[in-house]
């Protein structure tokens, strides 16, 4: 658990923050003192998480958007910077999970899975990079044991998580000497 005040004066962008792991991470970082920019497609639940963070005593922005668009990803980073004034951490947690028989998976389901689980983290990292480099910040990409193990009925999801894992490692190599940290 992060020490209290260990994120004081810092700001984090957290995707998937309306519920589950994203919400729990937002609250944990808020308790560590971080201002938070929360992103999710579910505006109502997202605002609830934001209010819970504000009740802890930090600044919280609820930014509802669909991360399957590159432009929306870039706009989310811009909004985070305008609201928090800086960015020190990016937690990519939002994910699409559609169990189905692969023969029946339609184009929209496949493309949405790849867009939100793989492309969105890349576009968000790209947009946040100047701030993260300047602040020696961190990227945490939440993948899954599905990145290492094949799983029936989840071809799109497991492929997206394996790719996100390798994206993390390749960016870690590319930015090896520049202060920013990337983990998964």
């Amino acid at each position, binding site marked *: 658990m*992060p020490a209290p005040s260990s994120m004081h004066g810092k700001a984090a962008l957290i995707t998937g923050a309306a519920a589950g*792991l994203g919400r729990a991470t937002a609250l944990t970082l808020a308790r560590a003192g971080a201002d938070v920019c929360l992103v999710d497609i579910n505006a109502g639940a997202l605002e609830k998480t934001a209010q819970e963070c504000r009740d802890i005593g930090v600044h919280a922005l609820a930014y509802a958007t669909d991360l399957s668009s590159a432009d929306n990803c870039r706009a989310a980073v811009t909004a985070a910077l305008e609201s928090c004034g800086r960015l020190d951490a990016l937690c990519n947690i939002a994910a699409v999970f559609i169990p189905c028989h692969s023969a029946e998976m339609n184009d929209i389901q496949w493309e949405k899975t790849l867009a939100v689980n793989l492309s969105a983290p890349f576009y968000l990292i790209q947009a946040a990079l100047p701030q993260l480099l300047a602040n020696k910040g961190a990227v945490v990409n939440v993948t*899954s044991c599905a990145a290492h193990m094949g799983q029936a009925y989840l071809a799109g999801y497991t492929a997206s998580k394996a790719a996100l894992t390798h994206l993390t490692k390749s960016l870690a190599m590319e930015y090896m000497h520049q202060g920013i*940290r990337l983990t*998964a």
Partner: protein
Amino acid sequence: MTELAQGFRNLRNPDPELLKRYSPLRGLVEIEHVAEMVAFLATDAAAGYHGAVINIDNGITAG
């Protein structure tokens, strides 16, 4: 993982043998435990972690 497991409920006629892969012997991992690791990795206390891929799966990938 709890939410992930629930997602399978809508799957028509899955082969139960094939779903067992995500059934850890020690039970599903708690969201709070994962959140603590994600938040830790975001802080300077995790300065030694770069390019690391960390499993928090309650033993799923152990064997």
